[in-house]
């Protein structure tokens, strides 16, 4: 299946979480912190909220809690 990340298409294996897919492709920074630092996943289980991205137009979605779907639109900010 393919997902679009920041406008570019990437192939991902079914069952991969959005967080894992982003890391596999080489995005280690997912969002910008309050003072502009680049941040990525920490807890991997939905608690720390560091891995927030935009998915399908919805902002602040935890990338570690969502499984990639075909044609999913993902936007990072870092």
């Amino acid at each position, binding site marked *: 299946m393919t997902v679009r990340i920041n406008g570019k298409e990437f192939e*991902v*294996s*079914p*069952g*991969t*979480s959005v*967080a*894992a*897919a982003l*890391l*596999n492709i080489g995005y*280690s*920074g*997912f969002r910008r*912190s*309050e*003072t502009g*630092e*680049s*941040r*990525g*996943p*920490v*807890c*991997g*289980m*939905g*608690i*720390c*909220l*560091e891995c*927030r991205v935009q998915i399908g137009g919805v902002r*602040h979605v935890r990338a*570690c*809690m969502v*499984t990639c779907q075909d044609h999913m639109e993902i936007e990072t900010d*870092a």
Partner: protein
Amino acid sequence: MPELDRFDVVVVGAGPAGLAAANAAAGFGARVALIDENELPGGQIYRASRGSISASVREVIEDLSKKSVVRFDGSTVFEAPSDGVLRLWGPRGTQDIGYRSLVLAVGGRELFLPFPGWTLPNAMGIGGLQALVKAGLDVREKRVVVAGTGPLLLAVGAYLLEHGARVPIILEQAPLKDLALFGAGLVRYPAKIGQGISLGRHIATRLRAGAWVERAEGSRAVESVTWRKGGKSFQTECDFLACAYGFVPNVELPQLLGCEIQDGFVKVDDQQLTSVKGVFCAGEPTGIGGVDLSQVEGRIAGLVAIGQDDQAEALFGKRESWKRFARSMDRAFALRHELMELSTPDTIVCRCEDVRAGDLVAWESSRTAKLQTRCGMGPCQGRICGPATQKLFGWTQGSVRPPLSPVPLSALGRPLDEIEN
């Protein structure tokens, strides 16, 4: 307005404790609901691996459906709008469900202690990295430094090696003598010996006891860690750093429901009953004890919740044995004081609001620090920095309020589902 969906027993959390509670209660014909934030039940221990559902998770799901347990997957409890009612946010939007008995099996989370560079991308938790690998992160040929404390360190080290990662070093902060004593004590727990042996020699050669991460370095992400052992510092290059210092309980939902908290944990009696009538708690929120203790506590809670007190009492001995095991872990993996002194004034402590250690030293409580610096006021609501400031400064955490997790505005301000009389 929809009618309120009512259950005999509602279980929050589908990890080892929650699954045991739901299965025990449903086994006697009670109408049981099982709520979990994840897309599938299983919690962290039985977390499904990428692509296909793992055999253990499939077994769990079949067991639940055989017993007609109603699952609310991908659903977060964010409010308790009235007595006996929980409000969820999930795939079907906002939903209220009612309960006669409630079992809180909400688990724990990793304890993170700040050090310079801990906020760099690719620096994460130990369980955190494992969860990501289970969700499809490819670690083949990646250099992963595993650091922190506790049995998870070795288990995840082995897991990463199995999945093709290069693990140059595993840093356990506890001194070797405490580890050896703990290892010798395992003789009393045959199930744990098997796990110990399977960790094997490839782990032993990488393990550095009495060693800890001082700082992580890198420009866009972690590139190396500087670690300390025996009064000397060493540097190791890596692609990922997995570092955490054991576990802390998730007590936010129990607190919201008014359950008494004692020394940071939910206070329960012999029957796993909290200070609130009809509300039980099992697993890590009542004391960090691992999967075996969680399962037996969950089973006890599920049985008492449907009035099977005698069946529950038969399990008290087993629970006591796993509690002893938990106490021996606490002793072996006690945190060294050096870990509380790693921050420099510009080290971030609250990752949500970017509050630095130097901004916090002037305040004497989490409440004043929160008001003055916004420490703990971000989206995680202090779940990460709260336990850290407790360790670093001895601050206790304040009260909780809904929503317990960030939910869309549309999820809030909804009238209560109609309650049938």
